[in-house]
């Protein structure tokens, strides 16, 4: 479903992604690991279409579409979801209103009528339970005053609401206590279906005990330098990134 060939990306004239190859098929779970500042978030943002990142070479296709031609909102409407490493606050906009707008915009794109208010509220309740997100959070403004962990849980809640085909979770596990980690992982697992795919970016192999990946990749200096199965994560944890540098 996602196919990235020889991708090069610059920020402010500095090359961050330097010839990256990566592909994801339906039903798969991929984990991307790698040291700080090697371009993991950059990759996630480029897939989601953040403008500040300049693609200087290579291609990204998604469901047969040239992804780089699509506006960020259309990528979202085509089923790409990014769980942000640092979710922003939007004061004054309630979570309910935000999600309702998002869902209805996505429905409009698919030619569906807006969801009736009652149906929407019921749907939201159901998804809140899935990630054990407290009711009161949805009455508050988007991420405003949420704790670090609440923000991350809120990302998974939004993912549950939007039912994406390709979800990229950028360090959704960092800052979570062990219970929250289980809840988040549980949410991801419940949403797993044969026709969708998940990419988790993480520093901790611990997450992978809960969300078991089919593939693990190591991103280093803008390239994927090593790929393997779940055992690669264990090996990394044991040997550290010094080991990768030697490769």
């Amino acid at each position, binding site marked *: 479903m996602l196919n990235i060939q020889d991708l090069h990306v610059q920020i402010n004239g500095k090359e961050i992604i330097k010839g990256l190859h990566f592909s994801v098929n339906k039903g798969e779970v991929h984990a991307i690991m790698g040291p700080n500042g090697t371009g993991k978030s950059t990759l996630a943002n480029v897939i989601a279409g953040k*403008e500040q990142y300049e693609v200087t070479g290579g291609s990204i296709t998604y469901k047969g579409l040239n992804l780089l031609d699509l506006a960020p909102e259309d990528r979202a409407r085509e089923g790409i979801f990014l769980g942000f490493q640092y979710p922003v606050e*939007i004061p004054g*906009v309630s979570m309910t209103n935000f999600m309702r707008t998002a869902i209805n915009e996505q429905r409009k794109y698919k030619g569906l009528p807006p969801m009736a208010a009652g149906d929407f509220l019921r749907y939201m309740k159901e998804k809140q339970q899935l990630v054990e997100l407290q009711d009161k959070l949805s009455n508050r403004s988007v991420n405003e005053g949420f704790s670090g962990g609440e923000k991350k849980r809120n990302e998974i809640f939004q993912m549950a609401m939007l039912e994406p085909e390709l979800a990229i979770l950028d360090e959704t596990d960092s800052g979570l206590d062990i219970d929250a980690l289980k809840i988040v992982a549980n949410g991801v697992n419940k949403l797993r279906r044969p026709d969708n795919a998940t990419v988790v970016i993480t520093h901790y192999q611990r997450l992978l005990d809960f969300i078991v990946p089919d593939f693990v990749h190591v991103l280093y200096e803008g390239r994927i330098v090593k790929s393997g199965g779940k055992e690669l994560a264990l090996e990394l944890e044991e040997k550290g990134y010094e080991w990768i540098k030697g490769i």
Partner: protein
Amino acid sequence: MASDETNNILDEVTTGEYKYGFFTEVETETIPPGLSEETIRIISEKKMEPEWLLEFRLKAYRKWLTMPEPKWAHLQIPPIDFQEIIYYAAPKPKKELTSLDEVDPELLDTFNRLGISLDEQKRLSGVAVDAVFDSVSVKTTFSETLAREGIIFCSFSEAVQNHPELVKQYLGTVVPYADNYFAALNSAVFSDGSFCYIPKGVKCPVELSTYFRINAANTGQFERTLIVADEGAYVSYMEGCTAPMRDENQLHAAIVEIVAMKDAEVKYSTVQNWYPGDKEGKGGIYNFVTKRGLCKGERSRISWTQVETGSAITWKYPSCILMGDHSVGEFYSVAVTNNHQQADTGTKMIHLGKNTRSTIISKGISAGKSNNSYRGLVRVAKNAVNARNFSQCDSLLLGSQCGAHTFPYIRTENNTSIIEHEATTSKISDDQLFYCNQRGIDTESAIGLIVNGYAREVLNHLPMEFAVEAQKLLAISLEGSVG
């Protein structure tokens, strides 16, 4: 087949001659441009005004001649030639169109996006109204309800003819003719407007709104409104309309006076969407308005809620004089400026009575190359023991070429008063927009969402029927401002 009775009612409504409506006789004459005592005498004579009103106009005119144009607002106002304005033109009957197909498609598009009903669209754009029976009955019920309660709600000219004693008693008592340059001008030459009187103890059961005024669009450029709520009375009054309003007159200098007696409450809501001029800043209305409320009796309350999106230049400070002990004044404002618009708006809260309270919530939103200023005065007089004020003035900037300014003035002569002022300036960040985009919300909608969230505290004070349209209006006013 429609019965004769039905036809009669239809006739009544479509011509505006129903009893409590706002029919102003359509005359065809105008007088030559220019302003002099002679002009004022002609206006007064044509309107068959009593002598005292002519005197009021003349005093105002003589005062105006001695006054300089105000220069203190944070505005750039091109010179206005007062001799070029026509001060008396009977409302021109609009060219009657036969269907909406003849209306400017751009205007229709805006109507649709605001969610304005087809009938209302026709009325606003001057298409002959084929009044459906429903709206007839709504209007008749409305008038009957008011009459039963003894409420007077009519045009200013009608009030001068039918209730001269009330007009004389209150006219100019809140905004004296010498108050300021534009108030003096209005007092000299005011064309028409609305008059509203709520008798003692009556809670007006409906929102009084210019919506019911068939001639609303023709009240002219010097509009005058007077609202009096007698002891224990309550009224919620709505002015304006979210639909874009065009006018050939560039200068608008209106006056609104409100009097609230003991235990009375008046809520005044405005949505102002006059033509702001084009993207380059050509054309557009200059809106110089004096609005003031007098909380005359104990425990009286006046609240101003305004959504200002239109006009090339806005100069407007709806204020409250808190004279009665325990009286309350409130000001809730959202002012949006885009392109080359300029707004200098705010309020004055004058605390005179004991235990008086005031609240000011101002949300400025600037985009494009516009300039948006909040100017506010909180004044506590010597005898205003335990006066309290809370002010919150926020500015939201879209883009980097616009300006936001805050000028809060505080003058207190009583040390038992508590005055709090908070101010913030924020921007819509690229990260916020991207976050919305990533959830499938395009940038225009995202701005609408964020701006409405920002203005929510104020919009919550609008009557329901205004609030929904006002929300859409905010989003539409800012279209094309980012991206």
